[in-house]
């Protein structure tokens, strides 16, 4: 009844804006129609062309991000997928206020990132593979102490967080060693500590496991999962390692050539973009019988076991034919690995793109 009165008393537009602000208040990150265009100086080959370039410069416009929109709820962990140059990093740069968009809006925790207010900068962290937060010649603990002051962390919080993070990441013994003497994986873990000491509400991870060995990769992965679950922080992760993504994220935004291709649950990507499924057949005889290639692409042929890639629509038809034709002990149908699907998705788009003339 109160609402009815309210609606009667105020214009409906206002009610709508109130309602929509209420929705966005739940979102940690709201991105609307974000565009970012770079002007790139086009240099032609040869000295003469270079000289001409001094007088008259030609520029190419590169649309790094075009019309990207999405919302991320508080406490969500989201993956950004896409090939190199798709616009993932540019989007993260926009959201962390490093660059200004050509058009469009974005708010993170209610702040406009590129205003670079200290109030916002104390609440987020960007971790990139470039690892540049630490002082190279000093032990990591000195850099952490500097972070404590820069982010104004009080001493008891600082001490408890530092102990917790160093134990979780297993670097307690390395705290006193100069950073330049640490291995890549160790340095990355120190970098994560530096990024998390001020307990950010939003964390942007740009290729956090790039160049790490499998063990370090897994350590970072496990840590991120545990930490995110406990602290309920909002995370955007970009990674080329699908293992990272599958281990950590439920939702993914697939971005290619600056536009969002897919936004939804990770498993939907396989459903949506994969034209194929995989049938695994175990034959009753000791070797794989001939003629099976008729039904699909043989991915693997090991003795009586064969893995066959079959078009989605044909799966049931192929299964019934194969079961009728051969003596089969066991059969299973599975989705293709995410990694393959993504690779296929991007390479097929590249091909179709290069086939058509550009510009």
């Amino acid at each position: 009844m109160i609402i009815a009165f309210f609606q009667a008393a105020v214009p409906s537009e206002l009610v709508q804006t109130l309602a929509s602000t209420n929705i966005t208040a739940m979102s940690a990150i709201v991105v609307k129609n974000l565009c970012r265009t770079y002007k790139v100086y086009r240099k032609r080959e040869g000295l003469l062309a270079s000289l001409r370039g001094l007088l008259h410069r030609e520029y190419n416009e590169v649309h790094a991000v075009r019309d990207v929109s999405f919302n991320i709820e508080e406490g969500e962990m989201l993956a950004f997928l896409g090939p190199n140059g798709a616009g993932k990093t540019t989007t993260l740069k926009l959201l962390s206020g490093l660059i200004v968009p050509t058009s469009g809006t974005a708010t993170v925790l209610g702040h406009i990132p590129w205003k670079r207010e200290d109030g916002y900068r104390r609440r987020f962290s960007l971790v990139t593979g470039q690892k540049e937060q630490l002082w190279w010649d000093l032990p990591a603990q000195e850099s952490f102490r500097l972070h404590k002051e820069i982010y104004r962390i009080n001493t008891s919080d600082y001490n408890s967080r530092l102990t917790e993070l160093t134990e979780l990441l297993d670097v307690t013994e390395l705290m006193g060693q100069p950073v330049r003497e640490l291995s890549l994986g160790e340095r990355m873990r120190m970098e994560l500590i530096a990024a998390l000491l001020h307990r950010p509400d939003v964390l942007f991870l740009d290729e956090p496991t790039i160049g790490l060995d499998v063990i370090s990769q897994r350590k970072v992965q496990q840590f991120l999962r545990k930490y995110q679950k406990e602290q309920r922080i909002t995370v955007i992760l970009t990674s080329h390692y699908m293992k990272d993504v599958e281990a950590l994220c439920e939702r993914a935004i697939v971005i290619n050539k600056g536009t969002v291709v897919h936004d939804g649950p990770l498993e939907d990507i396989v459903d949506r973009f994969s034209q194929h499924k995989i049938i695994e057949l175990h034959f009753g005889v000791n070797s794989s019988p001939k003629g099976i290639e008729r039904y699909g692409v043989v991915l693997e042929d090991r003795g009586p076991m064969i893995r066959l890639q079959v078009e989605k629509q044909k799966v049931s038809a192929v299964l019934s034919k194969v079961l009728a034709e051969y003596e089969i002990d066991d059969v299973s149908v599975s989705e293709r690995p995410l990694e393959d699907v993504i690779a296929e998705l991007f390479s097929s788009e590249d091909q179709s793109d290069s086939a058509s003339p550009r510009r």
Partner: protein
Amino acid sequence: MSAVPKQSLIAGLKAGVRIKWLILKTAMEERLVYRGDFAFATLVRFLPIITQVFLWNAIYAGDTTSSLNGYTYPTMVSYYLLVMVARAFSSMPGLSTGIAESVRNGSVRKYLLQPVDMLDYLFWHRIAHKLVYYIIAAGPFALVFWVCREYLPGWPERPVLIAFVCSLIMAFMIGFLIEALIGLISFWFLEVSSLIFIYMMMNYFLSGHMIPLEWMAEWIPWVYYLPFRYLAYFPAAIVLGRIPPETLPFELSVQFAWIIVLFVANRIAFTRGVNRYGAFGG
């Protein structure tokens, strides 16, 4: 109602002081990691002083009484030593190139991502470097002054001494601000090394590092109106009594005015540069 903001203001100031202190401390520790290299570089920097003293000796042909453009051989030696002291404050090795490098390799992003001001950070960082340098260079400096004690004019009077100290501290700030400004140009032109080279040459002539400015003024009368003279000539001229004591307060305020002008220029360049970086950079 006003109590709360006041308190938070004080807390903010306190936090500000604490961070400056920590930058200072951390940067000093970092410097001391390379103390061997640093001590060696310091010693090497004293070699030119000795050759320069010999050079002037040759120019004056050992004659301690005749005067060239108002400078006798002993005054020239004192001038040169005092200029070295001034330059120990005003020279900023690696500041412009450091800023340019961080813009080029992207590590300048640290200052955009973290709630810390780049110029403020670099300023305290530089003070730390200077302090470490003075600790190491104090001995050699004292030795050189002791060796050349016969040429020196003796301890100046207290007001002159105070003016000298003020001019040195401000020489540090002017040196910092000019080099920082040149470094910030790299937001527009990624390659500033030739610009830095031109600046170094200009500095060498126009600051009075090479020869006293009185000698330069014959060709370039406006040399006194540039900020460069505060980097070397001015502190030395104070001690040698070349600036009339009654004009000292005025001269020092002009120096201070230069600091304000350069500071404002730095802030503008930084704000615009960062926005440009944001608009063009990657």
